[in-house]
C-alpha cells in the first residue's frame, strides 16, 4: 500500500474495544520466526511480526578491523540497524545511515549487550546486522527480538535472551504492540526490551504523553508482552534443531 492512499482514520479503537486491525487491546500481532536462514552468517533469523519483515544476522566472534577498535578485556559488539529502500511507504534513500538509524543502532546494541558474556572473547568483534525488509510499526523491537535469537544461533554464550515489544497510548487507552497507524496517529509509544529471566530492562524509550500511572501500567503490560515473545523465541530456537534444513523461502 502506497502512502498516497493513506489517511488518518477517524477512530483507532471502535466501540467494541477492537483495534483497527481487529485485535484486542492487549493482543500481539501474529509472529513467525525462522532460525538459521542465511548460510554465510554464524547465526541468523527471519522474523515476521504482523506486517513487519525483518532479517537479523550475526557474524563473529571474529577478528576486528580496524584493529584499534579492539578492547583488551571484552569483545566489541557492533550493531547496525538499517531499512531497505522499499521497506517504507515512501522510498527510503539508501546511503549512509540517517540520524534515526544511528540512534536505533546504539540503543539496540545497549539492549543486547547485557545478555552476552562479552568478556569471553577479548580483542574480537561480534557484528549484528538488522535489516528491515518491510516496516509496519515496532521495527526496533522486532529487530532486537530477532537479533537476540540470531546471537544464540551463532553459539555465543549468553546469560539470557532479550525479548522486546512496544506498548503505546491510543485513543486514551494503553495498548500492546502498536501497528503503523497506531504508531503514527496514537498519543504515545514506548518500546521496551527485557532479559526475561530476571526481568531486567535493557531498552526503554518513550515519546508521547503519559501520566505516572499510565507509565506504570504501560511498563507492566510491556513486560508481560515481552514474556510472550520470549516463549516464541524459545520455541524458534528449539525448532532449529528439530528440522533438518531451514530455508528462507
Amino acid at each position, binding site marked *: 500500500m502506497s502512502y498516497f492512499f493513506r489517511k488518518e482514520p477517524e477512530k483507532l479503537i471502535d466501540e467494541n474495544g477492537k483495534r483497527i486491525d481487529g485485535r484486542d487491546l492487549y493482543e500481539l500481532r501474529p509472529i513467525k520466526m525462522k532460525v538459521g536462514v542465511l548460510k554465510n552468517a554464524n547465526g541468523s533469523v527471519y522474523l515476521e511480526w504482523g506486517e513487519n519483515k525483518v532479517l537479523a544476522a550475526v557474524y563473529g566472534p571474529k577478528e576486528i578491523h580496524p584493529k584499534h577498535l579492539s578492547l583488551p578485556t571484552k569483545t566489541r559488539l557492533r550493531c547496525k540497524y538499517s531499512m531497505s529502500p522499499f521497506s517504507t511507504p515512501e522510498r527510503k534513500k539508501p546511503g549512509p545511515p540517517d540520524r534515526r538509524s544511528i540512534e536505533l543502532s546504539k540503543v539496540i546494541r545497549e539492549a543486547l549487550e547485557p545478555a552476552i558474556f562479552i568478556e569471553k572473547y577479548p580483542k574480537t568483534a561480534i557484528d549484528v546486522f538488522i535489516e528491515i525488509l518491510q516496516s509496519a510499526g515496532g521495527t526496533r523491537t522486532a529487530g532486537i527480538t530477532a537479533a537476540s535469537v540470531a546471537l544464540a544461533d551463532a553459539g555465543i554464550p549468553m546469560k539470557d535472551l532479550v525479548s522486546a515489544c512496544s506498548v503505546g497510548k491510543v485513543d486514551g487507552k494503553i495498548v500492546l504492540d502498536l501497528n503503523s497507524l497506531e504508531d503514527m496517529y496514537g498519543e504515545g509509544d514506548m518500546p521496551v526490551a527485557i532479559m526475561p529471566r530476571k526481568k531486567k530492562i*535493557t531498552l*526503554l524509550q518513550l*515519546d508521547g*504523553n*503519559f501520566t505516572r500511572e499510565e*507509565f506504570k501500567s504501560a511498563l507492566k503490560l510491556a513486560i508481560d508482552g515481552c514474556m510472550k515473545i520470549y516463549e516464541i523465541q524459545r520455541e524458534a530456537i528449539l525448532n532449529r534443531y528439530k528440522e533438518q534444513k531451514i530455508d528462507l523461502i
Partner: protein
Amino acid sequence: MSEIVATIRKNYIRKILRSNKRMDGRNLTEYREIKIEPNFIKNAEGSAMVSLGNTQVLVGVKAEIGEPYPDSPDKGAFITNAELVPLASPSFEPGPPDENAIELARIIDRGIRHSEALDLKKLVIQEGKKVWIIFIDIHVLNHDGNLFDASNIGAVAALLCTKIPVAKMDGEEITVENKWVKLPVKNIPVTITLGKIDDKLILDPVIEEEEILDAKITICFEKNDLICAVQKIHGPLTTEDLEEAIEIGLDKSREIRKMIEEAVK
C-alpha cells in the same frame, strides 16, 4: 565518550556511595549548581549559556524562512542539532556528529516535540508555502557529565528568550518587518537524568561517575507532571529503579522549571 579514570578512584566512588556520599559532597539526589545566562549571543535570535557544575553548554536558536513539510503544510518546523565540540573534552573527536551527539540531539528534540513546547501552527507565514523553521543548535563547551540535562535547560531557556521578526506574505513577496515577537512557547519540558551505580540511583552524575555507571535514565517531564520522553542508556534497570527515578524526577523537574522561568524573566 570515555574518559580515563583511575581504578583506585573508581573504587573510592563506589565505596563512599555505599554510605550515600559522593566525591563532591553532594547527596544522591542533588544537582550541581545551575547557572543560566540567557541571550548570550547577540547574532542568534535566542540563546542561553548554561553551566551545571563544570559542564558548560551553549545553545543558540536561529530562525529561517522556509517551506513546510509536505505532510504538515499548516505547521512551522524545528530542527535540533548537537555538536560535541572537540575543545570540550579530550574524548571528543572532530568530524561529523557521532552516535552520542545524535542521541543527545534526538532526546532533547523528543522532549520539545512531544510536550508541544513550540506552537508550530503559529509559525506559519502562509499555509502550504512559507513557514518559520527554527534551528536549535546545542554546543557542548565543557564536558563534565550529564550533558542531557544541561542541554535541555539550555535549549528551553534559549527558546523562551527567542524573538523572531514579523513576516508577511503578499502574493509571492515576503516582507520582514523590524518588529520582533516572542516565539510561541507554551510548555517547558524538563529532563531529569539519573545514573545507577551498584544499587544506588544518583542524580546529575559527573563524568567520573558516568564512567562507572551501570545504567543511566533520562526522563522528560512537561507541565502537569506528564512524562513526554524517556531514554534508558547503557546497561539494564529494574522496574523498581524506574519508579524511584520518576519519584525523584517529578519534584526536581518542578524546581528546574521554576529556575528556567526565573532566568528568562
